[in-house]
């Protein structure tokens, strides 16, 4: 029998200190889940476990492949423009769709500038456009709306709901983000 998407009795330690002990969470395919809690509670670690970038010391992680993601950091190539950063992940094939996403996120006037000249909120929007450009059954978002004003945040949330129809797991300290995406809120201790 296949395991459900999520975590099954996982233990995770950093330098001898336990972040999770016997933690379990089942996620229904197609569901949106928001992992919420204070800084350092392990939200990002759970996303990294789902990405396969970390391994629990015990327990099981069942994730979906392929996935797309917005990382905690923007992880953009600063010497490239916003379309250049999108081209890295899709090649020239997805260029037109990528530019469409950038336009919807209000970056239409900034297409030729290198992202090193962008503000934090603009970089966040490029990272979000990159994640939405790559079709995947699982979308992982780590604080995706950091640095965005309320209007842009609403617009970005609407774009996520329009573009992504699979499972969504988000980490956020702000419960409003869960409401915007209609996500089930999981409070981490």
């Amino acid at each position, binding site marked *: 029998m296949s395991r459900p998407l999520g975590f099954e009795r996982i233990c995770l330690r950093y330098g001898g200190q336990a972040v999770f002990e016997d933690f379990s969470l089942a996620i229904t395919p197609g569901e949106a889940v928001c992992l919420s809690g204070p800084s350092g509670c392990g939200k990002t670690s759970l996303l990294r476990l789902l990405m396969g970038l970390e391994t629990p010391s015990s327990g099981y992680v069942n994730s979906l492949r392929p996935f797309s993601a917005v990382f905690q950091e923007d992880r953009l*190539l600063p010497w490239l423009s916003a379309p250049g950063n999108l081209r890295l992940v899709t*090649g020239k094939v997805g260029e037109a769709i990528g530019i469409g996403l950038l336009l919807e996120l209000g970056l239409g006037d900034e297409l030729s500038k290198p992202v090193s000249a962008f503000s934090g909120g603009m970089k966040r929007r490029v990272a979000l456009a990159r994640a939405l450009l790559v079709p995947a059954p699982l979308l992982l978002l780590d604080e995706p709306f950091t640095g965005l004003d309320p209007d842009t945040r609403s617009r970005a949330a609407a774009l996520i709901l329009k573009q992504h129809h699979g499972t969504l797991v988000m980490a956020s300290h702000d419960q409003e983000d869960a409401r915007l995406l209609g996500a089930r809120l999981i409070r981490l201790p």
Partner: protein
Amino acid sequence: MNRRAIRLLAALFWLAVWQLAALLVGQEFLLASPLKVLASLLHLLALPGTWLAALRSSLRVLLGFMLGSLFGLLLAAGAHKSRWARELAAPLVAAARAVPVASFVILAIILVSSRWLSTLVSFVIGFPVIYLAALEGLRGRDRQLLEMAGAFRVPFHRRLLYLSLPQLAPHLRAGAVTALGLCWKSGVAAEVIGIPRGSIGEQLYMVKVNYYTAELFAWTIIIVLLSLLSAFLLKRLMRALFARLERL
């Protein structure tokens, strides 16, 4: 006073010191004056043999530099990927950096024709510099960006073009310019020992045995100019190449 004027004055000062020293020594074969060297340089530049020698030596040194760069890059890529390759390369690189050029030339002259000696020496002197620069660049790449590229399943060729080469570029530029300068110095030294016909090294050897000090200085100026010109062209070429790659 601006920086350029200060530099010009500094150069004029040292030329004056040189001229004064030549006057004090009073013997052209021991220390030629700057004016005598200039006259000798102009005379050399009027001779077709000078241009031919410069062309032959340049081609040999640059060929050695290019082959050494290619080898250094491949070796660095292998060493970055595999600890075994790194350990295997370590003694080779250490030996190439430590063995004196003269010892290596004397050994190499038994193995290869004197015509290709400067190419071989440039190769041996150049590859460790490129190897170390490339390895440092590969190790210094942003791990978060590499992780992101892995998560998005970015294919190898796009990782190389968009992610790795722009991060390697500053290391490779600095390494290549240093390696090229060393290749010129060691390549010409190898020619002086091997004395291939029609080369700069042969010309230097001739002026040395005949005590033509003014010509020795003039040939030295020609070598420095060739080295500077090739470094300038290399920098332009690399800048254009990396800019082109980033636009792909």
